[in-house]
């Protein structure tokens, strides 16, 4: 027996901002869940199981928040699963929820992911000075900066590519009411003047710290068929991981990411991703990761990803493969939710529900997330047509 066909039938997210002082974590996840359920035309009672994801508990200092959040997600008497794959967790959570349906175990699954960064400080939570490692105390940006420099060196990309991505994503975010940053006035010249934060990563090339949550309702084919609204049919999913450090590891284009995307395209029956995919939401917390992931995903050959940026291929208006029309992680980063936002935004595109940042005629979309030290990968392809 093959996997049960399934679709995203509801997408919800909060308005992402630096501090949602008006809600508890429970209230935050409920807000996203209510919006996803309303989008699906369902209530909590219709849901068979809940899958929840967030980044490390140390980010807020609440251990196993899924236990506390069961009430907010009306999960009493239902299975609740916690997924944890660091920054990719929002994507992994969506995939685990989809697998609950593909397996035939459940018909309607609610996937929820969140982060309330204002309750902690992710940068320092990610810089624990363990006694046997060099204390960099520089957070994620400090970790990834050498990888970005390595990419720039080996690809011979012009130095302004990172700034181009930043201006694109910040401009795209202005068409997304849920985005954290709404900064319409960025120019390439201004971006190049942005202070150097983690050399060679400039301040504008860096994601914000956000509070936010996202939720998806994933339904089996028979349930989805009976719903009147648009659906995003899940054509393929893939997850991969690898250790953070090992001799000869390619930190710029990790093997796990290459393997993950290769499986994704094979499962989806896609042979030419650049031509066959209409839009992609990929996890770009530092702007240089757009060309890096374009290569890792197979949208571009090695050292050629930056040319897609320079040529405007990834632009929302006029590009043949718009990347992050929502403004991406670069404009909203509630860490645990960020991957699910990518997956949900991809679904919104093929459902025709992306509003002012809709890509005209989007029929095939990709959601992508990565986490840890570029070591966890989660991806899906969703389509407007049943696979």
């Amino acid at each position, binding site marked *: 027996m093959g996997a049960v066909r399934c679709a995203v039938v509801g997408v919800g997210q909060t308005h992402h901002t630096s*501090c*949602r*002082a*008006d*809600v*508890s*974590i*429970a*209230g935050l996840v*409920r807000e996203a869940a209510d919006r996803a359920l309303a989008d699906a035309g369902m209530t*909590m009672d219709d849901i068979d199981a809940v899958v929840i994801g967030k980044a490390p508990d*140390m980010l*807020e*200092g609440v251990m196993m928040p899924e236990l506390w959040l069961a*009430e*907010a*997600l*009306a*999960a*009493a*008497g239902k299975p609740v699963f916690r997924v944890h794959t660091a920054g990719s967790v929002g994507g992994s959570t969506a995939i685990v929820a989809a697998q609950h349906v593909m397996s035939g175990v459940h018909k309607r699954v609610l996937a929820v992911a969140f982060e*309330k960064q*204002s*309750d*902690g*400080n992710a940068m*320092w*939570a990610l810089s*624990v*000075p*363990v*006694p*046997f490692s060099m*204390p960099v105390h520089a957070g994620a940006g400090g970790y990834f900066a050498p990888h970005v420099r390595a990419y720039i060196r080996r690809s011979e990309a012009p130095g302004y590519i990172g700034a181009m991505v930043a201006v694109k994503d910040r401009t795209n975010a202005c068409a997304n009411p849920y985005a954290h940053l709404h900064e319409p006035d960025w120019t390439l010249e201004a971006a190049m003047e942005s202070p150097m934060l983690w050399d060679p990563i400039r301040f504008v090339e860096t994601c914000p710290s956000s509070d936010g949550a996202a939720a998806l309702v994933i339904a089996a084919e028979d349930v989805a068929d009976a719903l009147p609204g648009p659906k995003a049919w899940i054509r393929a999913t893939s997850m991969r991981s690898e250790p953070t450090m090992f001799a000869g590891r390619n930190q710029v284009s990790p093997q796990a990411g290459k393997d993950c995307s290769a499986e994704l395209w094979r499962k989806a029956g896609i042979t030419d991703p650049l031509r066959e995919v209409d839009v992609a939401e990929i996890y770009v917390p530092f702007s240089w990761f757009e060309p890096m992931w374009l290569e890792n995903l197979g949208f571009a050959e090695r050292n050629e990803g930056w040319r897609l940026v320079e040529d405007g291929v990834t632009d929302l208006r006029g590009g043949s493969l718009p990347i992050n029309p929502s403004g991406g992680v670069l404009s909203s980063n509630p860490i645990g939710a960020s991957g699910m936002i990518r997956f949900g935004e991809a679904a919104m595109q093929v459902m025709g529900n992306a509003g002012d940042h809709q890509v005209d005629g989007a029929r095939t979309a990709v959601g992508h997330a990565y986490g840890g030290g570029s070591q966890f990968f989660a991806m899906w392809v969703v389509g407007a047509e049943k696979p």
Partner: protein
Amino acid sequence: MTDETADGPGYAIAEDGSFTAPLTLAYPYARTVGPTYGTFLTGLAAGKVHATVSADGTVFVPPAEFHASTGEALTQWVEVASEGEVVSWSWESAPGNAQPFDRPFAWVLVCLDGAGTSMLHALDVTDPSEVRTGMRVRVRWAADAEPGIGAITCFEPVTTGGAS
């Protein structure tokens, strides 16, 4: 912060080269409690106990944000009494530094009059013989308290005031 010198305090080095090193994590967090717990905690500072009420009539003290069984978002409020009944208790014979008393006392679960759930706090008694399930207790309010559970200093036994 961690002592990063190999001969610092807490280091233990074995002959085979394995060693144990100290790692102290000190890390400040914030809590955004949201409107439900916020109403309760600020109410305490004003000497009031606010409770949420669900559609099935259950009165939650401390207030629940969502009904544990149904997931209903609880937005209806009532005020309950600052006096109630001990539902269960435990004896604290060796109090720690941050506890409400520096001598033995009782932890009690109290169901305030009008409430359908119970809350945990300390009871000002000095001997286990002074506490029992079903006894009447009342809130002893802290003077000039900040919002928070500390606005209740403790509970104290209700004495029947001479008449009987």
